[in-house]
């Protein structure tokens, strides 16, 4: 009995894993170079930033909110980090990284306070800060671009260095996924996020500190966006005020494809990270399969739609399975 429900329940992540396997299988058969270690390394690198962001976004979406401002936070953090490194080469790299994370967390706190305390709907609040943070970024940059040559070699290496054959950004993303996944699954604070998204009213009755949890979800999302910003700077080397513009929709797409319900209450960061991996895997595969670059966006969109429809069908099937179950169990 438990088996059936569990199987149906876990099918979401399973579905993405299957899709990933199919993607790699098919592409690998057509062009074995796709499966070469170097190619895998590239895909991991490419998905690392979106995966990190998707983890933060999952925290927020699980509470029945959304954070559209992540891309602007990435932008401001990437530029801020790069600027400090370029203008003050003496500042130790860990301090810069920590500073960027804090900067992101501060942006997240602004969102969190607007949503959690001032009760501004998340979509409106974060659409507003999407513009506002980007505006601050532009004003700060004032048309300036920081190039790889301006930044210390040691910092740039963070963006591409391998540790045990795995690129560092991917390792960071993996750590983030595992850590946040662990917290969401094992700590009461994590479970409470799901409870809030599942039923905000019942969460109040259960004595959960709803405001505090919502604010902290936004803060963590902001901090991770800050982290992603530094990774961005290290990885791409060329940083200006436009960094990551428009990436918010990619992040939300990854989260949705990863089976996180847009209306809160369910989904895991593993799913979201796999969603990010799948989306960048698709992009890479389309390039390797020599699919016209122009068709890639369309295929991406179609796949996103397919994923949310699949998700819906699975949810309906689960509901049906549960109804049957109720009858079987009924006294």
């Amino acid at each position, binding site marked *: 009995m438990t088996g059936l429900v569990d199987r149906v329940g876990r099918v979401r992540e399973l579905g993405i894993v299957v899709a990933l396997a199919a993607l790699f299988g098919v592409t690998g058969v057509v*062009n074995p*170079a*796709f499966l*070469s270690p*170097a*190619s895998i390394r*590239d895909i991991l690198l*490419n998905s690392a930033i979106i995966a990190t962001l998707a983890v933060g976004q999952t925290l927020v979406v699980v509470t029945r909110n959304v954070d559209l401002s992540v891309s602007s936070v990435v932008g401001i953090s990437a530029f801020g980090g790069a600027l400090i490194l370029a203008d003050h080469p003496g500042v130790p790299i860990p301090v810069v990284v920590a500073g960027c994370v804090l900067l992101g967390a501060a942006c997240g706190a602004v969102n969190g306070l607007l949503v959690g305390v001032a009760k501004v709907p998340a979509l409106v609040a974060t659409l507003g800060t999407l513009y506002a943070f980007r505006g601050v970024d*532009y004003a700060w*940059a004032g*048309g*300036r*671009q920081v*190039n*790889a*040559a301006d930044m210390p070699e040691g910092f740039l290496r963070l963006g*591409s260095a391998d540790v045990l054959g795995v690129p560092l950004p991917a390792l960071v993303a993996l750590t983030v996924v595992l850590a946040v996944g662990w917290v969401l699954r094992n700590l009461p604070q994590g479970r409470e996020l799901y409870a809030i998204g599942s039923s905000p009213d019942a969460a109040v009755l259960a004595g959960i500190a709803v405001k505090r949890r919502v604010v902290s979800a936004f803060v963590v999302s902001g901090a991770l966006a800050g982290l992603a910003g530094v990774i961005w700077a290290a990885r*791409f*080397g*060329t940083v*200006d*005020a*436009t960094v990551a*513009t428009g990436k918010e929709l990619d992040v939300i797409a990854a989260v949705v494809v990863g089976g996180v319900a847009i209306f809160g209450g369910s989904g895991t960061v593993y799913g979201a990270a796999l969603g990010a991996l799948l989306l960048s895997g698709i*992009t*890479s595969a389309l*390039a*390797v*399969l*020599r699919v016209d*670059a*122009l068709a890639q966006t369309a295929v991406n969109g179609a796949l996103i739609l397919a994923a949310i429809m699949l998700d819906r069908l699975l949810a309906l099937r689960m509901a049906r399975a549960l109804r049957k179950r109720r009858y079987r169990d009924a006294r």
Partner: protein
Amino acid sequence: GGTTRSDVAAQQSAAPAASSAPAAADPNAPIKPGLKIAFLPKQVNNPYFTIADRDGVAATKEFGGEGKEVGPSEASASSQVSYINTLIQQKQDAIVISANDPNAVVPALKQAMAAGIKVVSYDSDTAKDGRHVFVNQASAEDLGRTQVQLLAEQIGHQGRIAVLSATPNATNQNTWIEFMKDELTKPEYEDMELVKVAYGNDDDQKSFTETQGLLRSYPDLAGIISPTTVGIAAAARYLSDSDFKGKVKLTGLGTPNQLRAFVKDGTIEGFELWNPGDLGYLAGWAAAALASGQITGAEGERFKAGKLGEYTVGAGGEVLLGKPTVFDAKNIDDFDF
């Protein structure tokens, strides 16, 4: 085969002298004082334009005018149009524009011209009826052919090559690519094959990923031409950090400051570019010449461009900056832009 400044000078002086300049042009008219000239780049946060416009504004200072750079933060034609309108309202004497879309800005530019504003396009031309003069950084033909020549030498005239361009709609890139394809039909390139044109959208990350994609799908690639400063920098960064470093040759258009490190570490043997500062500087002078009535944009008219000397308006209202400079390990330290 690289080109040098002296080649450019030779080419300039060899240009046919004007036989019949239109009556309106008075080559001896003095530059009017206090000319207001606005530089409208594709987007304002692009360092290439920052350099070009900085020197353009410097040119306006030289002749006692007032220069400024305005523009959108995202490279779109529609937002450029908003700025053109604003410049009309501000009664600028001349607009110097690099068009995001050669056609979309034309209606607005026509309005500007109707309001008596002189229009100079630089870097990326508009349709001909949208401007008086186009200051061309280098002839499209030269750029297209020399990039193929550069790469062919580096890979020994043999192997598959690819192009990493900017956006699919970028006019200048597309013209260069046409000339590249034409150059490749010559017999000395019979062992070279252009397998793919990829688009990095002048977006750093996209260019980076596209480079990866190229190397995955064509592991035997011998070389890449990236005729855009954003693209070549991203491609260089990818190559320098991959197994392909030094094996896959990379050339194209880039700035020395951006690529110095990659030339030194052997990722890039050589690349080329005109001096963007000179481009903006020349465009500034051309705008002043137009606004002062020295030229009208007809073929054969001549004007002085400060430290760069005298230039002649060519066919189609084009003013050619000169041939591109090739930068390699030997000369790169002589340049700072």
